[in-house]
């Protein structure tokens, strides 16, 4: 399997389709990050899409292709915060609802999953990444190892540590 770094290189050489593969690889983890901020599936999908488009536009500036995952998630998180901020401003001045591009509120994530997502997004970046790739993108440990360029043993250890951190964090919350 190609690593993220290789795929980024291929995209920068003009192959847009390779970006689709990168996209599919990280789509669920990006959705998770956005969902943790917005709590609404429909809105999260729209923001995820925007984040990937923005990431593509700025891909030339990404110094380490291997960091594509954390990088695109960070872009998505910023986009989501921005959307949340604008939505709260709109509520404050009580502007009429224009309807068409406001995400409807029928896709809310439940509280338990929201807490879990919060905890995942507060993990150290390298642990966050393996949890998302393994559980959210459904990649086996070996694939996660190939994608991130880390040895299988390292990924296994990071997963184990991440789980411990999550347990602790969830207990506290």
């Amino acid at each position, binding site marked *: 399997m190609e690593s993220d770094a290789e795929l980024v290189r291929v995209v920068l050489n003009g192959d847009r389709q390779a970006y689709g593969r990168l996209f599919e690889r990280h789509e669920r983890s990006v959705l998770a990050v956005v*969902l943790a901020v917005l709590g609404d599936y429909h809105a999260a*999908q729209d923001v995820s899409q925007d984040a990937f*488009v923005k990431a593509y536009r*700025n891909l030339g500036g990404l110094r380490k292709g291997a960091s594509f995952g954390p990088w695109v998630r960070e872009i998505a998180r910023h986009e989501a915060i921005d959307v949340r901020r604008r939505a709260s401003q709109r509520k404050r001045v009580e502007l009429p609802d224009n309807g068409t591009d406001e995400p409807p509120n029928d896709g809310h994530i439940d509280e*338990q999953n929201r807490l879990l997502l919060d905890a995942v997004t507060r993990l150290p970046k390298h642990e966050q990444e393996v949890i998302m790739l393994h*559980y959210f993108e459904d990649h086996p440990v070996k694939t996660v190892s190939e994608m991130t360029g880390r040895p299988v043993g390292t990924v296994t250890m990071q997963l184990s540590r991440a*789980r411990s951190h999550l*347990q602790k964090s969830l207990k506290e919350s």
Partner: protein
Amino acid sequence: MEKESERLDQRLESLGGLLRSQPSVTRRAMRAIEQMPPVKRHRPVIFMPSVARSGIGLAACFLIGVFLWLGLGGPANITLADVQKSIDSKPWVLIRYDDGSQEWANLRERRSFFTRADPDGRNFYAGMRDHVQGIWRSYHSNWGRQIHEQPFTPRPYPQTPWEYAVGDWDDRGIERFSRTVVEKLSDNIKGRDVVRFDTYDVGPLGFRVLAQQVWADPETRLPIRIRKYSGPDRGDRSTTGDFSFPETGPSSIHDLGAPQDLPIVVNWGVIEPAAQAVVEAAKQALRRLPQSTRIIQKSKYGLSISYRSGNRFRQESYGKTDAGHSTPLALEFPDDPEQIYQWAPGHLTLFQVCIYDVQYEYTYDTGEGLWDSSTAPGATLRVRRHGEDWMDALLPIRDQWPFITNVGPMKVLENEPGTPPSLIWLRYEGLNLRRDWRLDPSRDYICVRQFEFSKKAGQWVEDESRQTERTDLTRLASGQWYARTVRNPGIIAAPRQFDVKVLTEAEMEEVAGTEGFTAFFSGEKLLKGATDNGATVTFWAR
């Protein structure tokens, strides 16, 4: 401890499953990306390294970075709501459409103007709505030398300048889609980079249809162009309008081209009180029909079996054709309606299934009926959104009660000599169309005779093909009346026969059979089945 770890593992897996079950946006995003230029690696550029090493240089580099970041991210941050909001400060919005129509909106005074003319100038219309006073004034070249004025109750919709400006406010307030999706794309108009917002209406099972496109200037955020889709999603029913923002606009419909010095006729379409009472009584009769019924309609060439259960409706249509699907074949039915409905599926060909579930009408055409020369053979399914009163339009015996939706000048006339005195003669007379109904008030106001006229050379001429006679008035066990036989004397056609039966809950369950009551009336199930069978699905835009 191990149990806790196991539980966490399960929670993470379950959350992962939930995330993966969400529809992917990859294709949407890739469509946007395919329209963008290929991305290249940025070359590192070093500005004045000696200065950059100093504190001032670092600050300058930071500011440049912020500037570049904002510059790159600017257009991407525009939303459709920003574009809609951008016109708020404009006094006027003018949209010129490619079909020759124009919409003017005076945003400060909340008045909208509309004008349309055929290219040859034969049909010209100009209208003005004052959304504060609730006045609608209009002129049409076919209406004779007069201007019509009619009050209307300003609705809660439209509420924003955008809604005034882009029109559609007349019915959008009633029939808004429960969910829309907006996609943002880069586009180009006459060499100028713009942002485009595609709005899709989302229907059952996630089917979507392109309903509207808006192009906007990424710098000013003002709209440049709008395209509205109104039919099935084939791209052939749309109008495109270009925005401009003049400082002034028309003050009356005369400024748009309506002739001066014409008399203003107020409330032309008013219904006289006596007629209004009859119309209301007919409406009530229709409403009193039992909520759980089976209606069989048979004619020489067709059979339909309809079921109504409250606000759900299902109709199956059967028939036979020749091998080339070009000629209908005459049918012979068993006499007993109880036999017909069980006999039909095994002896006739199913042409169509229609289901209405309060929100959508699903019409599944099996492709086994007559083949229209303009359409390719094959199964099709059309999904169209309708309001709550659509059931009235679907009921096969609905036209036995007139005027459910008609609006216009109506009056009750004195009966002509020879007409049974028990009948009521009701007339609608527009500028070019007249309809006469003879209603039987003792039998639920059923219309037993109907005539239609059109104006030719200033004279009313009857269209005999539109004459209708309803006989064999029959009373249901629940007390309501309906006509079993409907004839059109002006055309050579066999009568249509109706049989209405009130069904108990148990009988309706029996009809639904093994698939169950809910599935029997489920449009989504019909849609899924049709899709699995390769039917062409068309989801209609608003």
